[in-house]
């Protein structure tokens, strides 16, 4: 089980969502994917995608306008 980090800071819609999906596709079952970004709408949208894909949303953190979403495949 490995941890995959995706940095989308400064990127706007739909790039954070796309990069998250790319990482999920590459990940193996059980892997942790950590997505970091600053685009506010994407924070909510990534959580929606995780639910739609039937994956586990482990954690959503935010500090100073930067969010970190942790997903498990």
């Amino acid at each position, binding site marked *: 089980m490995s941890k995959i980090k995706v940095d989308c800071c*400064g*990127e*706007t*819609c*739909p*790039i954070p*969502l*796309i990069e*998250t*999906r*790319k990482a999920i*596709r590459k990940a193996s079952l059980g892997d942790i994917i950590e997505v970091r970004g600053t685009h506010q709408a994407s924070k909510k949208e990534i959580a*929606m*995608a995780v639910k*739609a*894909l*039937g994956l586990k949303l482990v954690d959503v953190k935010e500090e100073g306008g930067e969010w970190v979403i942790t997903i498990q495949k």
Partner: protein
Amino acid sequence: MTEKLTIVVHSGDMDKIYSALIIANGALSMGMEASLFFTFWGLQRLQRGGLEKGPLSKMHMLGIGSMIKQRMNKANVSSLERLIHAFKELGGKIIACDMTMEIMGIKKEDLREDLISEYGAVGTYIQEARESTINLFI
């Protein structure tokens, strides 16, 4: 069965190509399949070097067009090139319209063959659309 999105990309306007590619990438990102059927002015954007060349659908006569482009750059909006590659990488399908190629005298070698999954006409589109839960014409 996986849910699917199909879009007829009829317009070659830059902003409409953005809409089509953003929606299609969104569908793939949310776990759907996606097919884009490029026809008429849309197909012209698949000609070599043509993707970013579309005009804006409105306001380009008032000089507002260049302002919108500047603002898009400032907001760090992704290029169409990046979006179409993401679409392919996420498993999206691109269909080029045979009939448009005939009418406009476009040959396969004029098109971005690396991006095109198949060539087809209305029957191919219907087969895609009949199994789609979302179906748009842009």
